[in-house]
């Protein structure tokens, strides 16, 4: 079934009010998570906090619309795949520093302090940490709630 029809299903998920408010604020949650990640080197926050906020958007999807919509949006296979991509890219960035001299050398342009382009490769590290943390947390959440629940007597 199409994802749009799945999200219209009345019998699944919470009430209409929670669904509509989720539709309204979901895009803002993604935008705010990216804001926290990208400005991680000049304001508090960074990869870990931003990754948690990105995960929160998908967890809200799972809570408000039901498991099938969230799994159609980001399945367990792709969650573990993004987890691996984040971890591997972080290590690759570390090894790219070897071209200039040593491990984790900050080889990019430093820019002027206080602006967005001012820290070389720290924003890149933040982005990959966010991918790693967010995807791993989402995988844990669907592992516990969708696959790991106790089957009751009636469902048998």
């Amino acid at each position: 079934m199409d994802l749009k029809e799945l999200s219209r299903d009345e019998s699944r998920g919470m009430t209409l009010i929670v669904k509509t408010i989720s539709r309204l604020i979901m895009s803002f949650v993604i935008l705010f998570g990216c804001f926290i990640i990208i400005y991680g080197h000049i304001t508090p926050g960074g990869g870990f906090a931003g990754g948690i906020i990105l995960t929160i958007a998908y967890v809200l999807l799972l809570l408000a619309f039901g498991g099938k919509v969230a799994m159609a949006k980001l399945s367990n296979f792709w969650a573990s795949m993004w987890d691996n991509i984040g971890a591997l890219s972080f290590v690759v960035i570390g090894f790219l520093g070897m071209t200039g001299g040593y491990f984790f050398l900050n080889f990019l342009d430093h820019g002027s302090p206080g602006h967005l382009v001012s820290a070389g490769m720290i924003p890149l590290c933040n982005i990959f940490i966010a991918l790693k943390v967010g995807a791993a947390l989402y995988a844990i959440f669907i592992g516990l709630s969708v696959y790991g629940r106790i089957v009751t007597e009636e469902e048998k």
Partner: protein
Amino acid sequence: MSETIGYIMITVGVLFDVLGCVGLVRLPDVYNRLQAATKCVTLGTCLILFGVAVMGFGSGQNAMAVKSLICAAFVLITSPTGAHALARGSHKAGVPLWQGSVIDQYQEYEETKS
């Protein structure tokens, strides 16, 4: 001038916050508590944020003011939704109304459905 208006708004907001929490302690059952606390604390927090926005615009800190306005809009949208979800969850969990309640048409609907 803007500082005075800001302090007045913050004072009223803090007063409403305290009143809402007194209602949370004093009222008899979960629905009445939810009602008093949600109304008062939502308006109280929004007034604090509006006051901070007014003082920020007055003293030239525009980024702080705009962010507090965004935060106020966010609280104003999500707080009643959370209250609705909690009220529905409490009724489904079987919490009875206070014994002085006069009518419960939702209970009648649930009984006719099942």
